[in-house]
Structure formats: structure tokens, C-alpha cells
């Protein structure tokens, strides 16, 4: 078990190999047209993404809708097959494994969705909902599985008295606790949370965030945490990857990335967060013009250059590579960080 906050005090990459290592991950969805379903183009949903998740670490994935973050979540779990690239889990390459070879690995990687109720069968009791993965994996069944389900309900703050109830008898927050209990049934090491708290009321969202952090401390879990609320992601994450049009444009320690962003897009995102309401309001956010282009027709060069206030000629022709951007292994993919090439032009803040 990981000690409570050990990994939080140390922003340097965890020693030893990471639990998950994603390298140059690509997913293109074909766009087909006509009777013969000719491929007329590709949606470049994920276009060369690399990051790592250490044991006991939380990596937050942020970006606007269409940036590819949910596709990344499905790719690393092999719920989707990547077009190219590598996904290593605990040192083992899983991008090319067959579904049969994947089955035993799946118990180590689970997902929690935004709307747990829609992923439950309304006619199944909570006990069956939670024990289903145990039986599918051949881990346990019968009374043994039921005991495990009771233990899991207790772990997520519900009661074993709830075992024979049905999903509709629970509130949104309780249903999400059940979703978490089911995901934990097989004792996974990595939990992917895809907008897992986004649909919850504020008062209940805080409960579920606290629960996720408690479980991480107790079970030594790693999280890949996806949410559109940047304050939520920043609170729960050790590190953050900022995605734009299928690419990671910046990544690094959560607080550093949000307080001192190095990529102009991250600056845009951080500036668009509403101020803490308890200051009384009256402050306006930084408003950036335009919207994210479609991933079926991404602009050449840097994906952000059409909206970037600091773009210069090179940005429209050359895709920027990730460059070192500070402590804790920070990188940002922006030509402005390439001092030699900017030639005396204004370099970011």
C-alpha cells in the first residue's frame, strides 16, 4: 500500500517503471461515404499522444470536447483499437494483444463512467451489478462473491443492507459510489474516471472526490482522471496533460501547469476558469475568440495556431514538438519555447 501523501510531496517522476506508459498513440476514425462506404477522410481523434502514469499517481486529462480525451481513455483500456502507437501496462505491451490475451489483464484496469445508472441493468440487484465482473473474470461466485460485494459497498460508504436493492432506489451520488464499487471489484491497479463526477450536484461531487482520494490512499490506486471542470482536475491530479485537437500540448505537475501555463492554449483554458465565487464576483474571464476546429480537418502546423494570439509564421507550417518547460518533467509543444528559432520575437510570459 502506498503511504498517504508520499507521491504528492515529490513531483519528480516516480522511481521505477511507470504503471502505464503511452507512446505516440494514434487513433484515426475513417469517414465513409456512399454505397460502397468509400473512405473519404479521417477524423484524427488522437494524433500522437504520449504520457505516463506512475503507481499511486493521478494524471488528469483536460481539454475541450472533441480534443480526444475520452478516446484516449478508451484506447488505453483497449476498448478501442489504436491505429498505431504503444500502450504498456506494467511493462507489458497491450496495444497489439488479442481480446483473448487481454482478458486476464482487464481485471487490473477498470473504468468509471459519467452516468453509472445507464451502465447498470435496471433489473439487476446491486449485488449482481457488483459481482458481475468477478464472475466474468472467474475470480469468485456465489456466497464468496456476495461477501466481496458487501465489503466493497462498505468501502465506498454504502451498507451491505443495500445489496438486494435495485439501481433506481439510489440517488446520483450513491449510484456513482456503486459504479466505483463495481470498478474496484477485481482489485484493479488503474482506474480510468471518465467525467465520473461531472453529472453530480456540487455537494455530492465533493463527497465522491473525497471517496476517490481515500480509496487511492488505502488501495494504492492509479487514476487517469478526465473532467471538463478544471478546478476539479487540478484538485485531484498530481500531474495534468492538456489536450487540443488530438494532441497533448502541455503536461506537468498540476499546480504548476494551471498557475503558470507555458502553452498559449493552456493559458487560454486557465484564463477561462471562473474566479472563486467566494471573492464576491464581478470579475470577467479572459475571452478567446473562435472555437476548436474539427478533428476531421485539423489546421496544418500547430493545431492551436488559428486561435493563438502569439502565433507567427512558423506555427502554420510546422508541428511543434514537446519541449522542456520547467521542473518536474514539464513539457509544452510550442515554438515560442524554442528560443533559437524565435529570433528575438516575444517569448511567452
Amino acid at each position, binding site marked *: 500500500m502506498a503511504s498517504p501523501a508520499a507521491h504528492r510531496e515529490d513531483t519528480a517522476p516516480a522511481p521505477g517503471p511507470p504503471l502505464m506508459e503511452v507512446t505516440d498513440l494514434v487513433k484515426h476514425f475513417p469517414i465513409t461515404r456512399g454505397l460502397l462506404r468509400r473512405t473519404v477522410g479521417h477524423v484524427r481523434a488522437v494524433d500522437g499522444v504520449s504520457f505516463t502514469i506512475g503507481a499511486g499517481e493521478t494524471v488528469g486529462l483536460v481539454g475541450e470536447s472533441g480534443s480526444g480525451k475520452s478516446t484516449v481513455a478508451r484506447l488505453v483500456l483497449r476498448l478501442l483499437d489504436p491505429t498505431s502507437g504503444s500502450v504498456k501496462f506494467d511493462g507489458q505491451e497491450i496495444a497489439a494483444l488479442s481480446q483473448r490475451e487481454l482478458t486476464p489483464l482487464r481485471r487490473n484496469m477498470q473504468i468509471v463512467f459519467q452516468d453509472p445508472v445507464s451502465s447498470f441493468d435496471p433489473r439487476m440487484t446491486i449485488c449482481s451489478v457488483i459481482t458481475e465482473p468477478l464472475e466474468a473474470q472467474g475470480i469468485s461466485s456465489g456466497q464468496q462473491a456476495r461477501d466481496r460485494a458487501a465489503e466493497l459497498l462498505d468501502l465506498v460508504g454504502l451498507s451491505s443492507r443495500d445489496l438486494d436493492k435495485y439501481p433506481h432506489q439510489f*440517488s446520483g451520488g450513491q449510484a456513482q459510489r456503486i459504479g466505483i464499487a463495481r470498478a474496484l471489484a477485481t482489485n484493479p491497479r488503474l482506474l480510468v474516471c471518465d467525467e465520473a463526477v461531472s453529472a453530480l450536484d456540487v*455537494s455530492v461531487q465533493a463527497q465522491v472526490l473525497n471517496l476517490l482520494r481515500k480509496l487511492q490512499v488505502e488501495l494504492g490506486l492509479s487514476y487517469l482522471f478526465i473532467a471538463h471542470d478544471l478546478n476539479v482536475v487540478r484538485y485531484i491530479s498530481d500531474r495534468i496533460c492538456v489536450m487540443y485537437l488530438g494532441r497533448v500540448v502541455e503536461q506537468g505537475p498540476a499546480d504548476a501547469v494551471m498557475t503558470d501555463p507555458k502553452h498559449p492554449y493552456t493559458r487560454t483554458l486557465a484564463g477561462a476558469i471562473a474566479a472563486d465565487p467566494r471573492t464576491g464576483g464581478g470579475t470577467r474571464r479572459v475571452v478567446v475568440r473562435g472555437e476548436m476546429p474539427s478533428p476531421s480537418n485539423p489546421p496544418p502546423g500547430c493545431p492551436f495556431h488559428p486561435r493563438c494570439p502569439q502565433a507567427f509564421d512558423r506555427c502554420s507550417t510546422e508541428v511543434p514538438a514537446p519541449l522542456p518547460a520547467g521542473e518536474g518533467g514539464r513539457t509544452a509543444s510550442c515554438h515560442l519555447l524554442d528560443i533559437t528559432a524565435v529570433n528575438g520575437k516575444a517569448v511567452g510570459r
Partner: protein
Amino acid sequence: MHPQPLLEVDDLHVEFSTADGPVEAVAGVSFTVGPEETVAVVGESGSGKSVTALAVLKLLDGGRISGGQVRFDGEDLASLDNRAMRRVRGNDIAMIFQDPMTSLDPLYSIGHQIVEALRLHRPVSKKAARERAVELLEQVGMPDPRRRLASYPHQLSGGQRQRVMIAIALACSPRLLIADEPTTALDVTIEAQILELLHELQREYRTAMLLVTHDMGVVAEIADRVVVFYGGQVVEQGPTAQVLRDPQHPYTAALLAAIPHPDSAKELQLPAIPGAVPALRDMPTGCRFNPRCAMAWDDCTREVPPLYELPGGRTSRCLLHRDGGGSAVVAPPAPPLTAELAPAGPPARAPLTTQKGI
């Protein structure tokens, strides 16, 4: 604040009939919106905030106003028949919803839909209406507005659709705009754009706005006054800056504390509110917030607190005010990460009514 409010909601009650008998979704709500004022109604799901907004326009699907009055410019809307009500909707009072995709007709071009909205209330030619539609689209920041007239809703992004909805809502220069979670489905950068747009247009058209939202950040940014809903009642009301800086009701304080913000200490838990929002038919006795309130005592389970008038045009529904003065509400502290978690509360019943776009 304003001598003659534009909208007065006075002791409004709304009932929905269900298989198990009627349930009250809004239980005696009162507030006003002055001319050109922005008032935010904020609350969690099931607080009755959206139902109240729909009741103002008499758009309740399956529900009915079972008591109280809604006065617009002095006229009681509850007494108007459907025909008269249709004249008010879109003309004097316009509404925009969270999900423009369900409010826009997928079969018609957006140009057609704006022109239709204009001609419904104004005797203008089709040609003049089209010109006005281009003008409106330009005002709401739609790129290439003339060409966009021929676009269908599915060809637009979420932000662009919400811009079209705003154009339609403003077509007849309404005096009151009701916006129900207008930016909830949008990304932060687009949300910032739409809020800025609403603010600008509101000044230009001199429109009052009733904003329904769950997001305190949006409230802080745009509202002059805020009305906090809980369990179908108003629990606190007052000028935005004062309420957010110095909440007087324990619910408002706890809600503000539960939001993760940039300074939230990572080595602490978030100060969550225990339990869940009560179901409509299982409202606790006494104060409706008492089972979740860190400051509750015996009286809170027995006595229904009235709305106490506080200095500075504020009100708060909490027995702490009974002996006069402020309540000295303190936000619950953040417990350390390893402390016991806030309990999830007893299983709730299924929600009785879910209000979707109409």
C-alpha cells in the same frame, strides 16, 4: 431596490401529479426581477429552480401552479389564457435552454426559424425579417451570418447553436430573458464567450435576465442579485457580492465551501455536505436542510424557519436569525484526507419528476 419590479413571483406553489398522488416541487417561492436587472436562481437538482422558471412562462409539462402569483409588469400571468400567454412568450419574455439541439427544429434552416420567430409577433415582410435575421446573427457573433441562414442545427457547433437560440430569443427585443443553464453544456472557453455575449446584449437591449444555474462561478460573474433554492424553497436571497462573500444561510455557506477552487488544499478533503438532496415526497420536517446541516439543533427538526429579513436587502431562512442579527454562519472546515468521509445518507427514492427541455 427597484420601485416597480418587472417580474414578481409571489408565494408560488407548483404541483406535479404522479401515480402516488400530487407532489409539490415548488413550495411558496417569492422573488422579484427589476427592469434591466440580472437575477440568478441557484440550486442543486430537485431544488425547484427550473420548475419555477418554466412556471413563469406556464410551460409546465404535467405540472400546475397550485398557488401564488406570477406578475409581469403588474399583470398576473396565471390568469391569462393560452392565447394571451402565447403573445407574452417570445415577445415580452423569451427563454433559452441548456440544450439548444432540443429547442431548435432539426428540419428547418436556422434562417427559417429566426424569421418565423420574428413574424409570429411582428407584422414584417419575409424579406425584412431575413435582413433582421442576418443582423441578429451578426450581433450574436455568428461568423459569416448571411451564409449561415441556410445552415441546419446539426451543422453548427454547440456554442453556435446557443448563439442561434440567443438570436431567436432577442428577435422581438423581450423585456425579460429567462436563461435556464445556458452554458452548462458548453466548454469553459465557449461558456466565457456566451456569458460575455449575454452581458453585452442585455445592456444593448435593456433586457432583464432571470438566470437559472447550478454554477456559483457563473452567478458570481453575471448576476446582480442571487436567490438560493433548496428543496423547493428560497433559503437565501440578496445582492450577489454580499451573499457570496458572507453567506447567511448554512446551506449557501456549505455549498460554496464544497466547490473545489484553485486554492483548495490537496492534503485536505473537500468540505462535502453529507447526505443527498431530499426527494420531493420525503421532505424532512422543520427546516428542509436540517439533516445535512452542520449547525442544526433540536429546534431545526421541529420548527419551520420563516424567511428572516436581514440588513442590506437580504433574507435568509434559518432559525439562527431568530433572535435578530446575523447568523455568524461558518463554512464547515476541510477535514484531513485520512479523516472519516461524509456519509452518503440513506437511499433516496427515485426522482419523481424530471424536467427536460420542452
